[in-house]
């Protein structure tokens, strides 16, 4: 069984982001970039399926600028076998990513595609569901556990009320939630080995896909700041303030 995982290059989750001076975007120049944390979980799950003997090959996919090769390289160092980059400098929206993924899925014929449930930059939470729709596949979103059996996959999902389990007919798309696994760090020998693994580079034109954005970003602003609060001495003072000043209890 072949497994495809998608990874996105995003501003590192520890970076305190800044809106640029002309309020058109978040500043990404000279900012540390990393693999989207939910995608790391997707890569880890793919590697575990390989280690369990369930998956025979693990392909890491990305859409983005040339530098996205570094993100794919990270996935290869973690344990993916080879990479595919759909290179573009356009800021791609989830629908465009899903279309690129669909084209690659049709070439590679994986039985399972695992993607992060959302990217921590645009917080869209769309790509996996859109890919499943375009392929006519089943979808298991916000997964915290996967059990594969012949031709089907049992996915435990983190939902608002707790946990829900669904049985999906394969092939399927799964999107990862935080508790699915704890991603490994790439070891130095594996980082060296990853340099020899191949990354095929293509582009949306070659795939015949129109990736033009459907949304125009008119403005990006900082959110309203909260006014500084006060420190209280003890619980008595706290309860007094909540009752008589804020009047919330």
């Amino acid at each position, binding site marked *: 069984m072949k497994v495809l995982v998608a990874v996105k290059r995003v501003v590192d989750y520890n970076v305190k982001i800044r809106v640029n001076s002309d309020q058109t975007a978040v500043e990404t120049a000279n900012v540390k970039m990393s693999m989207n944390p939910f995608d790391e979980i997707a890569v880890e799950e793919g590697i575990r399926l390989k280690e369990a003997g369930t998956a025979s090959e693990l392909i890491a996919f990305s859409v983005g600028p040339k530098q996205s090769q570094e993100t794919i390289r990270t996935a290869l160092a973690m344990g993916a076998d080879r990479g595919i980059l759909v290179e573009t400098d356009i800021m791609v929206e989830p629908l465009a990513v899903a279309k690129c993924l669909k084209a690659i899925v049709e070439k590679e014929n994986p039985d399972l595609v695992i993607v992060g449930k959302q990217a921590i930059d645009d917080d869209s939470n769309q790509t996996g569901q859109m890919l499943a729709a375009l392929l006519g596949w089943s979808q298991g979103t916000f997964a915290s556990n996967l059990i594969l059996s012949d031709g089907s996959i049992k996915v435990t999902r983190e939902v608002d009320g707790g*946990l829900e389990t669904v049985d999906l007919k394969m092939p399927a798309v799964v999107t990862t939630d935080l508790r699915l696994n704890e991603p490994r760090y790439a070891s130095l020998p594996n980082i060296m080995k990853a340099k020899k693994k191949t990354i095929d580079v293509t582009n949306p034109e070659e795939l015949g896909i129109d990736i033009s954005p459907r949304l125009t970003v008119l403005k990006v602003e900082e959110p309203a700041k909260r006014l500084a609060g006060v420190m209280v001495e003890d619980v008595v003072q706290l309860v007094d303030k909540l009752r008589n000043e804020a009047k919330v209890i």
Partner: protein
Amino acid sequence: MSVLVIAEHDNAELKPATLNTVAAAAQLGDVDILVAGENCNAVANTAAKIAGVGRVLKADASALKTGLAENVAPLIVQLSSGYSHILAPATTNGKNIMPRVAALLDVAQISEITSVVSADTFVRPIYAGNAMATVQSSDAIKIITVRTTGFDAAPAEGGSAALEDVSNITDAALSSFAGQELTVSERPELTSAKVIISGGRGMQSGENFPMLEEIADKLGAAVGASRAAVDAGFVPNDYQVGQTGKVVAPDLYIAVGISGAIQHLAGMKDSKVIVAINKDEEAPIFQVADYGLVADLFEAVPDLSAELNK
């Protein structure tokens, strides 16, 4: 323009998130509601009473019982002609189903809007709410999920919408429901609670959460948690408040033993009043708190409980 709102429900009750979504939809045009489920008559009747709703479309079939996206999305697509916008609350259901609808219609989805600027322009948070993007859609039909904290609830009473049955429901036979483990609680739901008390890594163990529950019961509050507390197994996943968990905006949010990572702040910083109790005076949570108390929570929380009795 007509707008279709996808009702959030469990076949027995209409969830409050629907009301906030109707409020967002009402800024865009005439509102219809789709109730897709099985034996969901009571829900449809409740939805018909929401002020300002024109029609309630009831799709009642076993294939829709558990809200499988593979079955619900084609139904919404089938109903989409004639609507300029389709909105669902940004619950796990809405997030699961709506992108599937958008892709089937070959349009973008606009996720988690917090305000409506015009019929094609919306504001939505990006980067865990550390930036707000105003985006304009060029698509013929707008598929939107609504961050419920951005909109006051529409009145639940006062309407008298017409009920219509929807037929032609098919089972895509791609997926099936296999079970659930829902957290049972007498307390209010996190996303609609007026008061929330949340615990973080500082709670040290799930066995210490009853301390917070005791206070929750005195305040009629819901209990939440930071990602650290959920990852450590103190409490179930549905307690998580944050960028990738639940986004809440109660009148009062009490953060206990929570340091205040940006991912957590993203889920609660729009609360009206924030209280932080933490023994580390450098904890970032104090930067967003209206009232901060530097104290050992294992002393402060029992004291708080006692003080609330007075």
